[in-house]
């Protein structure tokens, strides 16, 4: 089989899987938020509300696609696609499991995988940023300015929390990192790093309690205030796919990827991977149901005065310990 065909087939399958999991992550979020607020959540479309994502998609597609008069038409129309494209392209290098012969299940296996993910991930902010700026109205502009500041401040701490893992694993390739966790998961030696990553990941994906970018209380809907119909839908998909991405990365870096815990190897590795990612997704929904939104200056203070020093300290300590124990 020629390489391009193999990659094409893998991409189509993966795209299908990611889009389906997005759809049901959204349904799950609405259900879980409902339950935590003593509501049943969506339950009218199909049995147990299972066809709700299809109904939502149909609704978004049929809605009018508005462009404000003051908007910059090209950037305004392009921005959702930037968000979506960067969100999806990360999946080209995320490995989901390994066959018995050690072959990893991924579209492409890049030896600097973690760096590439960081690079692509930080491009995602352009979608939000340009979308807000090109809308030509106040609230989206404020939202995108916030998003830029927030991304810069939290991306630093996030990258630093990766470095501890990289020092322990001694490699930047994702399957190398997972294989290095065969004995114990990096969440144990890198507990602080893991906490920092989980917090910054919430900020990176603009989820509550760090959803300052779309804070309804003061910014209407933030960067996507002017968007409607399918273009709004694309931003929406990008947000959930990003959530999935950060859950996958957390699983790969700190929770052993597809390694089975306690030698429960009769369940295949892919299943473990999915279970761990699902737990993270649940955690993010749980956070959203629990915590109120932070005030903007506190968010910044928390990022720069707490997370960044802590991440640096964690890095230094890890480096010293690894240097001495070899």
């Amino acid at each position, binding site marked *: 089989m020629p390489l391009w065909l193999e990659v094409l087939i893998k991409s189509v399958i993966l795209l299908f899987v990611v889009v389906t999991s997005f759809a049901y992550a959204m349904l799950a979020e609405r259900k879980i938020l409902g*339950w*935590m*607020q*003593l509501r*049943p959540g969506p339950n009218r479309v199909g049995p147990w509300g299972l066809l709700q994502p299809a109904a939502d998609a149909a609704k978004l597609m049929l809605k009018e696609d508005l462009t404000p008069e003051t908007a910059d038409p090209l950037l305004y129309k392009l921005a959702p696609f930037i968000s979506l494209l960067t969100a999806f392209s990360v999946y080209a290098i995320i490995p989901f499991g390994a066959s018995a012969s050690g072959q990893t299940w991924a579209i492409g296996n890049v030896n600097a995988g973690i760096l590439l993910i960081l690079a692509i991930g930080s491009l995602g902010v352009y979608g939000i940023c340009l979308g807000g700026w090109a809308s030509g109205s106040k609230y989206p502009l404020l939202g995108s300015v916030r998003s830029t500041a927030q991304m810069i401040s939290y991306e630093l701490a996030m990258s630093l929390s990766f470095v501890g893992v990289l020092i322990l694993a001694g490699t930047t390739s994702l399957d190398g990192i997972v294989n290095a966790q065969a004995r114990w998961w990096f969440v144990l030696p890198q507990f602080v790093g893991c906490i920092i990553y989980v917090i910054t990941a919430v900020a990176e994906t603009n989820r509550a309690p760090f959803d300052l970018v779309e804070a309804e209380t003061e910014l209407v809907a933030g960067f996507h205030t002017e968007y409607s119909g399918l273009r709004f839908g694309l931003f929406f998909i990008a947000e959930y796919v990003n959530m999935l991405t950060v859950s996958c990365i957390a699983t790969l870096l700190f929770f052993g990827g597809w390694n089975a815990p306690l030698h429960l190897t009769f369940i295949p590795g892919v299943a473990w991977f999915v279970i761990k990612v699902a737990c993270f997704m649940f955690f993010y929904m*749980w*956070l959203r149901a*629990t*915590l109120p939104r932070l005030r903007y200056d506190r968010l910044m203070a*928390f990022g720069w005065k707490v997370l960044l020093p802590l991440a640096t300290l964690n890095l230094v300590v890890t480096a010293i310990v690894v240097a001495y124990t070899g």
Partner: protein
Amino acid sequence: MASRKHLYNPGAILKGLSITFGFMFRKRPTIPYPSRKKQHSPRFHGLHELRRYADGKERCIGCELCSSVCPANAITVIGAENSPDDRRSPGERYAARYEIDELRCIFCGMCEEACPTDAIVLTPRFEMADYRRGSFIYDKDRLLVPPDAGVGMPPDDRPGGIPGDLGRVAEIKSTTDVDSGYSATWRGEILKTQHEGLAILKKPEAEK
């Protein structure tokens, strides 16, 4: 400073998380409405109906007491003399037109209390949603129970004051039919004329 203390207090955050997690397994008070309906109090005030006597005569004698007592000005009654060969009610007069604007009505039940013949009563029906404002003006055709619907019980005789629902009002007529929809301005004109102190002497067109 208080909230800053909470921000850096993981204990508070964990407590919050445990509360929301616990709520997931609580019993939810939601009633899945169209498939299951809430049991209302027997005294619930809903859509009106005009009742009849056992012999099929209308109870309403067109006295307009309900219309004068109504705090929302929702009722319009125009009475007319009974003619000997077509007696609509046992009294001298009957209601030639009788309309209630259910959008104005506050469902207080004063009309029911004022009525000397227990003609107008409030039923427990509450599902009146419709597509046109005009459809909320219920005329006599829709308020009057059909002759074979029985007599029900006058409000004071009901155990615990349970409103009698003869259960037929809503079936009488489709409410969204454009041709038979009622223009919302008709009542307004009447009220204006009454306001100007002009009695409406003209007998309204005969009921169908």
